């Protein structure tokens, strides 16, 4: 049983991510449509996995990662960053900020599922 926070301003993208991860048993999903909403939710409730878009209207994924890593409570939270070709510079910054994994669009359902599995099960062991 694990709670996943899926952050993307595109609803289709959030739905796709959820569909990709759904085969993993016992996941529950919460959507956030902006970086700010994500930060607020993270500060109020524990999650087991964060799937994060880099490019969002208010604050970007990097700032969310920086926030997460700045919190003792969230230091271990696994983060999968979803990026697009052209985001390479931001990618490096996100990595420096402490993102766990990257998925560059387009990715296959199996690929993100495998990353999620690794992070969720690795965290338990």
């Amino acid at each position, binding site marked *: 049983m694990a709670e996943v926070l899926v952050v993307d301003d595109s609803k*289709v993208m959030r*739905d*796709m991510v959820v*569909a990709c991860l759904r*085969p993993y048993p016992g996941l529950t*999903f919460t959507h956030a449509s902006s970086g700010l909403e994500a930060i*607020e939710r993270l500060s109020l409730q524990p999650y087991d996995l964060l799937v994060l878009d880099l490019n969002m209207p208010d604050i970007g994924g990097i*700032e969310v990662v920086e926030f997460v890593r700045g919190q003792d409570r969230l230091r271990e939270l696994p983060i999968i960053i979803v990026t697009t070709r*052209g985001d390479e510079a931001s990618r490096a910054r996100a990595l420096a900020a402490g993102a766990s994994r990257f998925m560059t669009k387009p990715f296959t359902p199996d690929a993100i599922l495998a990353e999620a599995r690794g992070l969720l099960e690795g965290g338990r062991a």
Partner: protein
Amino acid sequence: MSASVDLADFLPAYLAEAEELLGTGHRQLLAMEVSLRRGVAHPRAVRELFRAVHTLKGLSAMVDVEPIVDIAHWMETCLRNADRAGGRLPQASVEPLMEGLREIEQRVRQLAAGKSAAPVPAGLLARLEALEVAGAAGGGGVATGGAAALALEEALASRLSPAEREQLTTGVTGARRAVRLDFIPGADRAASGTTINTVRERVASLGETVKVLPLSGPTVGGGSLTFVLLVLTEASDAELQEAAGGPPASVRPLVVPATAEAPAPGLEAPGVLEEEEPEESRRSGGTLRVEVSRLDEALERLAALVVNRSRLSRAVAALTAAGAPTRELNAILQENARQLRDMRTAILRLRMVRVGDVLERLPLLVRGLRRSTGKAVRLALDVGDEELDKAVADRLLPALVHLVRNAVDHALELPEARRALGKPDEGVVRVATHGRAGGLLDLTVSDDGRGVDAQAVAARARVPMPATPDALLELLCRPGFSTRDAANATSGRGMGMDIVRRIIVEQLGGELALETRPGAGTTFRLRVPLTITLLDALVFECAGLRYAVAVGSVEELIEVDAARLARPAGAGGLCLLERRGSAVPLVSLARLLGLAPGAAQDAMGAKALLVRQRGELVAFGVDRLVGQQEIVLRPLEDPLVRVPGVVGATDLGDGQPTLVLDLAALGLARGGKPSRREASAKAERYLS
């Protein structure tokens, strides 16, 4: 279950969102063009356009539409440079960017028609690439006008882009101030509807939010997070503080007036930033923007009043039955019922938008189509002053866009062909409203084109000739109908009609009908409800069926640990779980719903939803949580299915109605209440 999710299934949703993003793109680009002509930068439009294009690129990559990815990529590069240059973009960039949007739009349409997206035209990428070079070269020489100082600690100031800093320092004009508003989120605040989302909405009605920065660190009240909103506003500190939920929110000035004294150099004339205000906020003096959640809250309060009123009328009926003189009471009750109805209508009206405003985008669409198809076409908007719920309008527009686009693309003949038929060169696509009655709005989308060739449609679908217009429409709306081949030009219709029907009929619960005369034209009749009810819902599975409940009604979601359940003797087999030191009765929802009458008592499900039932917490055991999503609530009006605990139904996309439950009401209607109380008492002892 295997991981074989096919992302191609998301194509319809992708197309709808692409449509929206293109709409945003067009609007921002037009705004940029207007600003550029006046020699002014428009950093926000640049940023918004950049984001729309970037999102499109990512989504297109996911559903594997390489040509759109390529076009979007180069547009994005050019826009990124412009953003870095404080939103300045060479005039010469507008046309290639416009062309880029058009090319993307065309490919979205091809996809909607079941074709594959055409490769990128050779010249376009070169032109976009050239822009990038020019942009990069010109980028360095831009003055950032950062003369005025920001009263902001460096940690925050460094997180602002040059454009944002410029916006803040130059945005101070007349009564308009630049301030920082600190909002501290919290669980209790979130529960009462004050979240960063609602605060942003409220602040948006008071001024322009340039940036919101999250700030970690201990806060008043023991939190660890503060949101710093940087706002240009004429509102008072008190109003702003109120918008952020009152203290501990605080307001501080951001730009020191002394430095703002000197007029900004060069291009920035006073009032420049007004260009950026969304038009609707300034259209008429007497308008007010209110976030929808506040209206929903008012409706909820009203619902409580209505419930109370029915209690009152039952009490009066009892009095009447006992022979008391209740004539006047009854008259008052009747009057009261009417007032409540009027009140409800008044609240719902606040959410209404004018149909005319909804259709604002269509002329732009037709203008673009005129250029891309080479057809002479006039859009006739024959729209009254009808109003629609914003939620309906947001869904209706994409359907209308599809229909108008189909009409131009496939129904209208080319000018020569029209002339040969004795028709005027210029075709007419008409979108008209026909008044509203019984809570429904009638619209038509008609054209004077070639009409739908039923025979060709039947041949393509390999079925007998449809006998009625309804049957013909049915064929056109078959999912994937248009994917058979490229014969659309002869059949005249079929582009994404399944999406249109999905929106109008399945989502909105409306009606769609078709009238067509070969050679003379086609009319689509749409009937949509004026209002729909949206609900933020938790979807879960129980005994193999899916159900939804309003998120707001659920206090907590917990795991059920079967080993830690208490089953006190004499409690009617009821289970109890321990929650923060007190015992909470756990009810198997499957049993409550009569879905698992024979199931073992301890088959309680893996998750439980905690709901307050008459003030007491009750846990409802369910099998699996599916997720959280916004649903369209369809009330159940037929007396056969109006039962306590069932609020309505919704379509989660599988074509089967999914019940929306009110767990508290369901528990009260179907659960054994007294035994639960007893059990509770017993369990307190048992657990302590």
